[in-house]
């Protein structure tokens, strides 16, 4: 999750040179890993968008007399315990996992960003209170908090999305706050404020541009964490509900059928791994490309 591998630490933001984002074409040309990772993710998104056309069967139509078939021409990954085509279900699974992840990250970004901004800008008591709130969220290992939230609100994708969003808030709050604190004292910001610039203008014209690089990296890593979290919640039965074709949930069922038909678990498992790997790889490559200080 975002507390684990890859989170941008606020100290890095504080010390990073104030840089401009590089052009996209330059990015791709000079850093081939970024190009390849982006390509992989683009493919993933295409699969999700084109699912109705590239999956040859209906993912939720049952066919009980053809249950648990091995992979064949008609069914590239075989069928599941109710005779549904596994390949179709894996393809359609992307239409659940990807949007959920994006929304969760967006929630974390917007809510966290707002909190960080308020805390950094207002300072003093606001800062103290808001940061304690953030600390309270960070007091729990991310997945455990997400599980507890979903266990309380009730299983379902909507609640899973809320839970994952909440867990993403601290990273963005700290990121924004660190940026605000750093820049708040600088001369040109003080000058802009003296001239009467509104907070909105300051955010858009000064804070965000400098935040853009670490932000892009973090978003990519957050997306990876969110997909993984949703898959884990659904695997535990707390996320997607039947008969939704969801990767994590399919692995839950598949785990019970390992003796009988391993593909039920392998198909979705590989899908999750590819999606998460893609976002992590992109984030990693972007970090190397955009912020030399962090290069390893």
């Amino acid at each position, binding site marked *: 999750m975002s507390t684990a591998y890859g989170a941008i630490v606020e100290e890095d933001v504080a010390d990073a040179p104030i840089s401009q984002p590089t052009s996209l074409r330059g990015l791709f040309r000079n850093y081939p890993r970024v190009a390849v990772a982006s390509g992989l993710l683009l493919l993933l998104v295409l699969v999700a968008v084109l699912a109705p056309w590239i999956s040859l069967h209906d993912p939720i139509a049952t066919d*009980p*007399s053809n249950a648990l078939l091995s992979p064949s021409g008609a069914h590239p990954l075989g069928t599941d*315990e109710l*005779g549904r085509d596994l390949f179709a279900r894996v393809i359609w699974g992307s239409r659940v996992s990807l949007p959920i992840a994006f929304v969760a990250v967006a929630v974390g970004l917007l809510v966290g960003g707002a909190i960080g901004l308020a805390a950094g800008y207002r300072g003093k008591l606001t800062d103290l209170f808001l940061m304690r709130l953030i600390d309270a969220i960070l007091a729990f290992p991310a997945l455990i908090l997400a599980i507890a939230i979903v266990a309380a609100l009730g*299983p379902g994708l909507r609640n899973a999305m809320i839970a994952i969003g909440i867990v993403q808030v601290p990273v963005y709050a700290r990121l924004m706050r660190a940026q605000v604190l750093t820049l708040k004292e600088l001369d040109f910001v003080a000058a802009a404020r003296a001239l009467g610039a509104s907070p909105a203008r300051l955010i858009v014209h000064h804070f965000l541009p400098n935040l853009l690089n670490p932000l892009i990296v973090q978003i990519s890593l957050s997306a990876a964490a969110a997909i993984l979290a949703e898959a884990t919640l659904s695997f535990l039965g707390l996320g997607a509900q*039947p008969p939704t074709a969801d990767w994590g949930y399919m692995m839950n*069922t598949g785990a019970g059928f390992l*003796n009988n038909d391993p593909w039920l678990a392998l198909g979705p498992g590989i899908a999750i791994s590819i999606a998460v790997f893609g976002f992590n790889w992109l984030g990693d490559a972007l970090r190397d490309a955009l912020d030399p200080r962090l290069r390893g």
Partner: protein
Amino acid sequence: MKRLAVGLFGALFLAACGTGGTTSTNTAPKSGGTLKVALNSELRTLDPLKSSQVVERQVYYNMYDSLVTIDQSLKIKPGLATSWQYTDPTTLQFTLRTGVKFHDGTDFNADAVKFNIDRYMTTPSSTRKSELASVKSVEVTSPTTVVFHLKRPDASLLAQLVDRAGMILSPAAIQKGGADFGLNPVGAGTGPFEFVEWKRDDHLTLKKNPNYWVPGRPYLDQVIFRPITDSNSALAALRTGDIDVATTNSIADKDIAGIKSDSSLVYKDVAGLSFAGFEVNSASGVFADKANRQAVAYALDRGQIIKNVFFGVHQLSRGPIPPSSWAYDSSEQIYVKADPEKAKSMATGFSFALKTPNGPVPIQEATLIKDQLAKAGITVNIQVEEFGQILTEAESHKFDAALVGWSGRIDPDGNMYGWFHTGGSFNDGQYSDPQVDSLLEQARAVSDQGQRKTFYDQAQQTLVQDVAYIFIDHGPAQDITTAKVHNLPLIADTIDRFAGVWKG
């Protein structure tokens, strides 16, 4: 003389346990050894007073004895009581077995029986009350005779006394155990095995009772129960010899075929006592309309469900009384084959919510039901919920349909009255038919089996045609063991009795 009587009854008891449907009895029994048994979940308590789970009974029947027992054909046989008679319809007298001692050394006698029955009836937290609802009082007339005074005639009482409501524990042990007795019932039973220790979620150990009232029994030195909730783990443990016996429902249906074809394992089954399917709310909502219920009943393809979800291990159900019962009526054909066209003619175009317990098999079943009913224009919304939540909502009648079944009781009354009598404690769907009520009441009050069957046949036909419940399947009672386990009786109540079992 006493010795002869004990021996005679002991032999009868063994005959009851040991005949037919057991694992091979060709070679001579060997004494000794430890039997490792897999349970499909952990127990909550070892005190029959508070017991509410089927799995707890697996341990109880090997530690505690009841007043009466059953044989393969579900006939009531002597247990701690050697004989009984109704001196009048509301007075039941038991003659008790002599020379029996509890594991703590105290004597089994009529006072102990009264103590236990009173305890089951009067303790506030007792879960046995509804089973003993017809009993007014228990009277000790001699150290070996007890008289039950009943409020009303109750033909199902003897069957109730086979199970927990009739289990007699040592009063001294109960008092000594105090508040934690249910976790540590040392010396409490009279059964073939004594309690040694219980480590939650790990193992529960029983050891041989050297003074068991059946001479020469048990053969085993020890029985160790382990809760293995994952059926794949249970299967693996069975194959490696980590466990010797898997209790009913601890191995998933999908793996039964694999067990049958494995020569190191033995599988036997017989129709159980349970019925399964889903409850429907006949009082309010979409199922208050009988036509809707009938449409669902006609549209369902039970054969397909049994083949796909239960891999053919379960049997088709035509009503609440299972094939193992003397009251079974196989004449009911009305819903045996799916008929979507007939269903559409009754009602179509409606939808309902099906509350489904959170597990792979119920979810698979619900999904299949959803698809089958869609063919008849009926929409099902699957609501997966924790089992406890479903029970709460069902009890407060806030549901359309709920995938809840019944583990079943020996006496047909146990599968009928509580479920289908107006106001019955399990009648969540609030089904109410005065004719059925009257038939069920009469069937309880009369003792002649033939007469009772007539009542039950009629009641069953009515409530099945009224679709008081959507019956789908009856689960089996299973003996699943390694080839080294011998003489395990196969009885429809799914309980594994180890008194006569030997390993070798």
